[in-house]
């Protein structure tokens, strides 16, 4: 102990800068190393390569009659694929944007030339419940789209939220029309299928 105090003083006076520099470098090197060491552990919990690759689902639309919908699973999420009647389309197109909680036109939510088909992620934007209304027997709420059983959010025939507490419209997954009656969910252009 005695030695430490004695030598400490003499050395510190002689070369404070070189010592500080050495210690600072060591500290920095240690910090960088720890961060790099932590990264593989953290990243190992992100989706694995095969899960990322399992990202497309092909759906045959032909069996769906007008006014009805089916649910398909994409990336573990329910996707609502709904064939809208002409009345439902008009209803969706005629709502003034000012009446919407999350203003968005109906055209922006469907593919041009395929506006009969509404394809949305079937997860309520409030806290993640699955809204009802995809089966003919289920309640669609007064806006004719979907109704969330958890806290009463209502969606219209364009999948837009019309009554809270949900803050946003139902999400649109990336998808693309392979033919007039076939879609591929998960990609926006065919070539990357």
């Amino acid at each position, binding site marked *: *102990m*005695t*030695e*430490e105090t004695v*030598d*400490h003083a003499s*050395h510190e006076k002689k070369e404070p800068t070189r*010592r500080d520099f*050495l*210690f600072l*470098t*060591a500290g920095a*090197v*240690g910090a960088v*190393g720890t961060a*790099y060491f932590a*990264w*593989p*552990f953290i*990243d*190992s*919990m*992100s989706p*694995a*390569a*095969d*899960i990322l*690759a*399992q990202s*497309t689902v092909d759906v045959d639309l032909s069996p769906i009659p007008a006014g009805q919908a089916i649910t398909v699973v994409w990336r573990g999420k329910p996707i609502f694929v709904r064939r809208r009647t002409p009345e439902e389309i008009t209803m969706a197109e005629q709502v003034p944007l000012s009446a919407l909680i999350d203003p968005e036109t109906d055209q922006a939510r469907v593919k041009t030339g395929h506006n009969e088909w509404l394809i949305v992620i079937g997860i309520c934007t409030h806290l993640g419940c699955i809204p009802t209304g995809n089966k003919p027997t289920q309640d669609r709420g007064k806006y004719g789209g979907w109704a969330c059983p958890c806290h009463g959010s209502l969606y219209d025939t364009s999948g837009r939220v019309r009554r809270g507490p949900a803050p946003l419209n139902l999400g649109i997954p990336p998808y693309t029309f392979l033919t007039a009656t076939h879609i591929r969910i998960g990609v926006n252009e065919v070539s*990357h*299928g």
Partner: protein
Amino acid sequence: MDRLTKVVRWIDYRLPFFSFIDHELREYPTPRNLNYWWNFGSLAGITLVIMILSGIFLAMHYEPDTKLAFDSVEYIMRNVNYGWLMRYLHANGATMFFIVVYIHMFRGLYYGSYKSPRELLWMLGVVILLLMMATAFMGYVLPWGQMSYWGATVITNLFSVFPFGETIVEWLWGGFSVDNPTLNRFFALHYLFPFLIVGVVILHLIALHQHGSNNPLGIDRKEPRDSLPFHPYYTVKDLFGLGIFALVWAYFIFFNPNFFGEPDNYIPANPLVTPPHIVPEWYFLPFYAILRSIPNKLLGVIAMFGAVFVLFFLPWLDTSKVRSATFRPVYKWIFWGFVVDCFILGCVGAHSPDYIYDNLGGLSNQILGQVTTLLYFGFFFIALPLLGLYEKPNPLPKSLSEPVLKGKKKKSVEIQSALFALCFLSITPLYGTDSPPLPHEVWSFQGPFGTYDRADLQHGFQVYKEVCSVCHSLSQIRFRDLAALGYSVEEIKAIAAEYKVDAIDDEGNPIEKTALPTDKIPGPYKNEQAARAANNGALPPDLSLMTKARVGGPDYVYALLTGYELTPPKDIHIAEGMHYNPFFPGEQIAMTPPLSEGLVTYSDGAQPNVNQMAKDVVSFLSWTAEPELEVRKQTGYMVLIYFIVFTILMYFIMKRVWARVK
């Protein structure tokens, strides 16, 4: 007094966390003369932490189910981000842990660190060793390869020698053989035991801090200047040691990850076939050798357990009052003899019992094992008790601060390193393998800088597709993985479209649909029975891991493919439907010579000969076995450079800090 100090004071007054750390890690008085052999305790602690961390993250992906376990490990290697790094870190970590702990124990043995008042400290260490052995054994079972399965079978059967043995073994298994219940409980316990180790390590440290570390002179500290505060003197020395240790560990992870592993463990467990040459991991080899050298089952098992349990009694078997071997002229030599004996036992365990050492005048492994086993126990039961009575120790120095003459001390260090080298040299005649020599080929992916040649891989894939895939599956590979061979997305889609995979249609009927890039490459047969029926009862093995699953790796597969001989030597009788191939174990193989001139025309128009085809397909299979090889080596260089810088830095800081005392 700033805010932070205030908060620290407030907490410390109620929960003395900070003063505890300060007391036990910073100012903790440590003998001033500890040498580098004292680094291994802290290294063991760090290794334990890294093992627990990597283990927890591996457990997030591993499936303890006999049907899924093997594939889930390959899933970790191929699909999980940095999964290969986690697994190789953990698998090689077990080896590193035992190296460090064994050195730590030999250090204790040399310097008498188990003597009064440190008997309990030593015994807690032996408890840690036992827990480590159990943990390592159960961990080795988890990948559910052939060695896992048969290791589990053999080790659990050891308990059958005890009274009610049959019942005990069935209780351990949870069934009538090693099976799913066994795997499940091993996984649960493999996760639990490391935390028990942490608990015992804490007790080990409490016992250590009671009387402080022993030291190379083995005498008690008498005055304050015999000690130094732990921080910074030993923290920085430990960090320097950590740098070197990390370099060794990293070398194995990134450049030789399967060095300590057995190729057989890349073959999925098969309860009906025992591998021809079954060995435990290296750290169990000496004990395994003791088990085998005693021809009686019960006595063998007792001797094996005894070889570990005798360590509990070490403090009382050694009757000498002098701790450090530095002052024990006879024990010093006996100690090194014991180290060599342990190494030889390891070699004995690695060879089969009937192995003959030709270069040692035809010495049989059995005899060597029996002699070294006797010496092992002789050390504890004869040498240690008698030495204390008859050995005349050299005079001890008065205090740590006035040690023996400087020159003499230097010399003893040199003698020590010479002896250490001698240990390794003395057993070189015992090295050598049981397997026949293979012709060596040059592979582009070998060596620390090796990479795959994309053109070779594509050619090899073509050979696989057009020739091998008629009988052999490639179950670990998905079509999209072929991107690594340089194929574009479109090309991969086209390749996948040539295959059909099973699916269920909307009415629930089984159908076949065109394969997608995300599908696994379908094998040629629906199931094992179909495969055997089509091949005379032989099962064409899956090729995904072939080059990792055979001794000799790519060289072996290449030799096998090109080694067929039409006319077998006269003294060999070839059975109906078999073919002569000197490189196949047993020299008779059911596979017809698969490659012949002009069998495949490469897409670039080349007409390869048999050797070229074999070379290409082996390159391809090396890729299927180790798709991470290139990124592994690249990462390895970064890690090595980092730790070289780290170590140099720590070296200079250490010199600087220690300049105050010297």
